[in-house]
């Protein structure tokens, strides 16, 4: 059974953005998301999660290539200038791909 190709978007960003980001993802129509707590370093310096203002999250979204493009563009326009954020995507084989056609 060859599964339909689907996209996985991964976002590393500030924990302070979580509730706003979740609202955005829902509004843009993504089929779901998964979030874990993280820490890290990037261009905007060390974010060691020693306290909330300094913690990161790691957001994953499984969706169609079109939705992936929409989300990426929205994030870039809305958050990239002012927030610590990194976004990337790759292709995945998913079970029950019909869940993720949006």
């Amino acid at each position, binding site marked *: 059974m060859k599964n339909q190709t689907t996209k996985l978007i991964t976002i590393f960003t500030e924990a*302070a953005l979580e509730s*706003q980001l979740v609202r955005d993802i829902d509004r843009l129509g993504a089929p779901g998301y998964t979030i874990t707590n993280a820490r890290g370093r990037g261009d905007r310096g060390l974010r060691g*999660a020693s306290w*909330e203002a300094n913690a990161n999250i790691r957001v994953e979204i499984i969706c169609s290539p079109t939705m992936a493009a929409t989300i990426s563009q929205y994030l870039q326009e809305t*958050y990239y*200038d*002012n927030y610590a954020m990194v976004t990337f995507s790759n292709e995945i084989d998913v079970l029950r791909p019909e869940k993720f056609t949006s």
Partner: protein
Amino acid sequence: MNSIDPVIWFFLFGLLAGALKSELRLPSQVYDFVSMLLLLTIGLKGGVELANQPFSVLLPQIVVIVIAGFLLPFIAFPALRYLGKFTRADSASIAAHYGSVSVGTFAVAVAYMNSRNIIFEEHMALFVVLLEIPAILVGIILAKGVSKKTQWSNVAHEVMLGKGVMFLVGGLLIGWLSGPSGVESISPLFFGLFKGVLALFLLEMGLITSTQLSSLKRYGFFLLAFGVITPLCFAIFGTLIGTGLGLSVGGSAILATLFASASYIAVPAAMRISVPEANPTLSLTASLGITFPFNILIGIPLYYWLANYVYTTLALH
């Protein structure tokens, strides 16, 4: 008597451990727990006292405090914008931090008064809540003007329903509803452990402060001066208002401390969302790296001396 309170040693120890890059750390959920206990305790104490205050005494206090809360950021903003040459967003954000208050600093002031048996109005926890919010609104307006684009309902949600305000307000309400005899059964956890919990909180604050100190040199002398002079000016203002409102010497000193303190929890979170173009490192370096240690190490005894001085001068004792 005049010796340093052990909770202050915990703060200094945290500072030192941070400076040495030790692996000391309060687990993040333990820090949340400790903050929560602190906020609830302060709220509960205030709430129990609130029940004893007639509304006719409270009302003028509330009105004056709220007005002051709206005024303070307007005083700080021009200094930042025109003397400090900060961007409009940064100036507004820092002004909001200093217009609002720090619950940790309030807790240290309360511990200071308690350990010296100095009387103060216990219901002042209410003032913490009243002072926390107006500065945020003013900060956003200073940054963006009264723009239609600002999603005020989002802002209100973020500000009023954030953890800090909610735990304080919850504590106030529960204390007020339960009264002194009601809270007795829960007092071993909330009141009995208060100083110990404050010690752990200050240990972590020391660790966090020391990470802020490292970014201090990047921002130079103006920020350092601002972080020391602003609390002094605001404290004088607070002492006078406290005296004017007829508070006790201890109460005036605590009000001065509140005015002098700068937020590092509620305001940073709100500014990050509402004024994202402001640099959060800048305001946190000032409020956490300079003003917080200044207030708890030097400020509080100074403000108490000041309140005493004003009362003696005006022969109000």
